[in-house]
């Protein structure tokens, strides 16, 4: 088990830089998820930690060693790939023991470790089978098992669940979480799925276009998204973003239709400056007796049982808006609704830099 530290890590392919100086440290035993849209560089970063991609600049440390120049095999890491990369011509047992065999671990020791790991992963009956004869979930577990038997300092996961169907994915997600807690091995997990990221990670590193947008706990990211990108990336349905301007006294936002939304604080911004106002759909309430802040006509209604999502075209200029209400609300489209929201659930961003300003 080791900590990992990234110090201004960069990666270029020829003249184009795809990773722009990423720094951050991952504690011993921590489970960190790198999350971002496809093409943001998250897999590249993981592969740089693994030693599968060279490092153009900066430094990666695993434990006390700088690993920049080390071969993947020398870094004492294990990796689970998206397509599992099981060796198709070897049995499950041989797949799991291959790395140990190369490291010249004694036969008895190999057998003990593989059997122990198979026990944990409930793979014991399948040790003699070939990967072809296994189901998707079982293959996934073999890939994990191959990583676990190595007893590495670090686990690396490259979108390991994306080849599974939705139901299995939820189940395996829980298994991975339990396993990581039980083994306590420092883990770095890459995914584009924000729900997976939120449920698995102790901390999340949100990556966008090769830079870190925010690195924090799931609750940090949800409550205090540092940037517009993080705000819209985390949460489902996504956060509503409205255009607005700062009021005279900088303590409220004025929407294009003239509605005034008080912030409960004073912004450090010029009066009249345009801003983006973010509201999560689940934080918007139906207004009761006169505390309405804004209103709109419903368009499409999604009744999900546990909650009801009301969509609307909000005003003329701005984008669509979604509101999530608990429980069942029998409403038809075209109804006029009035809404309210608590000031602490408002997020204000500078549209230029995308940074949070409240």
């Amino acid at each position, binding site marked *: 088990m080791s900590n990992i530290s990234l110090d201004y890590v960069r990666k270029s392919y020829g003249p184009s830089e795809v990773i722009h100086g990423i720094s951050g440290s991952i504690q011993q035993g921590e489970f960190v998820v790198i999350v971002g849209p496809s093409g943001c560089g998250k897999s590249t970063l993981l592969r740089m930690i*693994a*030693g*599968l991609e060279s490092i153009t600049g900066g430094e990666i440390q695993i434990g006390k060693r700088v690993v920049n120049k080390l071969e*993947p*095999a020398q870094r004492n890491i294990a990796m689970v790939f998206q397509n*599992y990369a099981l*060796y198709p*011509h070897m049995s499950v047992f041989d797949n799991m023991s291959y*790395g140990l065999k190369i490291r010249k671990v004694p036969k008895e020791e190999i057998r003990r470790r593989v059997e122990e790991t198979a026990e944990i992963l409930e793979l014991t009956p399948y040790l003699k089978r070939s990967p072809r004869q296994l189901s998707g979930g079982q293959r996934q577990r073999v890939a994990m098992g191959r990583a676990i038997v*190595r007893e590495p300092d670090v686990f690396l996961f490259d979108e390991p669940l994306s080849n599974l169907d939705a139901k299995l994915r939820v189940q395996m997600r829980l298994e991975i979480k339990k396993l990581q807690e039980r083994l306590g091995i420092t883990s770095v997990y890459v995914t584009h799925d924000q729900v997976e990221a939120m449920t698995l990670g102790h901390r999340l590193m949100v990556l966008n276009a090769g830079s870190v947008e925010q690195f924090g706990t799931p609750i940090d990211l949800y409550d205090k998204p540092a940037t517009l990108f993080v705000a819209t990336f985390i949460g489902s349905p996504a956060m509503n973003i409205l255009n607005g301007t700062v009021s005279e006294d900088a303590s409220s936002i004025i929407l294009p239709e003239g509605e005034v939304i008080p912030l409960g604080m004073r912004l450090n911004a010029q009066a009249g400056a345009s801003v983006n106002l973010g509201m999560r759909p689940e934080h918007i309430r139906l207004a009761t007796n006169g505390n309405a802040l804004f209103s709109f006509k419903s368009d499409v209604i999604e009744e999900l049982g546990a909650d009801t999502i009301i969509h609307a075209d909000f005003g003329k200029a701005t984008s669509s808006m979604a509101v999530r209400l608990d429980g069942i609300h029998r409403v038809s489209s075209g109804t006029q609704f009035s809404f309210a929201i608590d000031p602490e659930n408002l997020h204000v961003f500078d549209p230029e830099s995308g940074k949070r300003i409240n």
Partner: protein
Amino acid sequence: MVENRPFFDTLTHIILILGVILIAFPIWITFVAATHDLARMSQAPIPIWPGSHFFDNLKLALEGKVVSGVDMLPVWKMMFNSLIMALMIAIGKIIISILSAYAIVYFDFPFRMGFFWMIFITLMLPVEVRILPTFEVVASLGMLNSYLGLTVPLIASATATFMFRQVFLTIPDEMLESARIDGAGPVRFFFDMLLPLSRTNIAALFVILFIYGWNQYMWPLLITTDSSLSTVVVSIKEMLDSAERTPEWNTIMMTALLAMLPPILVIVSMQKLFVKGLTETDK
């Protein structure tokens, strides 16, 4: 079949059977000729049904008494030469092709593409178009009348290299990555992963190349003047020439039968591999 037309179905089988007869007839006639004695084979019309002298002819051929009065290498020795040549060509081509494909796909090194194009060029230089200067090279290297001279110049293979390259490109990248994380170096990776993973391709290629090697004609004709090295395929021509004087078709056709037997056995018994090899290698 899409619709029920009993007449058409029968016609289908009739046509196919006619096709089979057309294809098999020359081989059948060869077999028949190899079962009669010299006397019967000297008078027209020759028979179309087998006779009873198969083993006599087999014995004559194997002992080298194909053409009376001509001292010839026993056919079994010729077949042994053919076998050595076919195996050396097939195995040699497979080894050097798989190694160069491995280098080209899994390593980045200066002149990589240069080497690739050099191998590609061999595709455009069949032995027939450079026969004389190649002969001179082999002669000047002192490789005439040797197994090496017979096989080595035929061993370079662009098609086999391309096939292995294709096979390697379909193996997921993660296989290498995973193996490297497991600590496998280039040599280990080759023997533990690539070789077993391309097993069926190697077998399919072997079938094709064995036939190719066994059936070589122009090259051995030129390179081997020493009769102890002659291959069975090449010697058929000599026998044909003598047939114009003494038409000992019974033993000549027995030799022809023996000469085509190994490749036919290979094709028929390994049909799946053969079809795979054929469709995958041919460019």
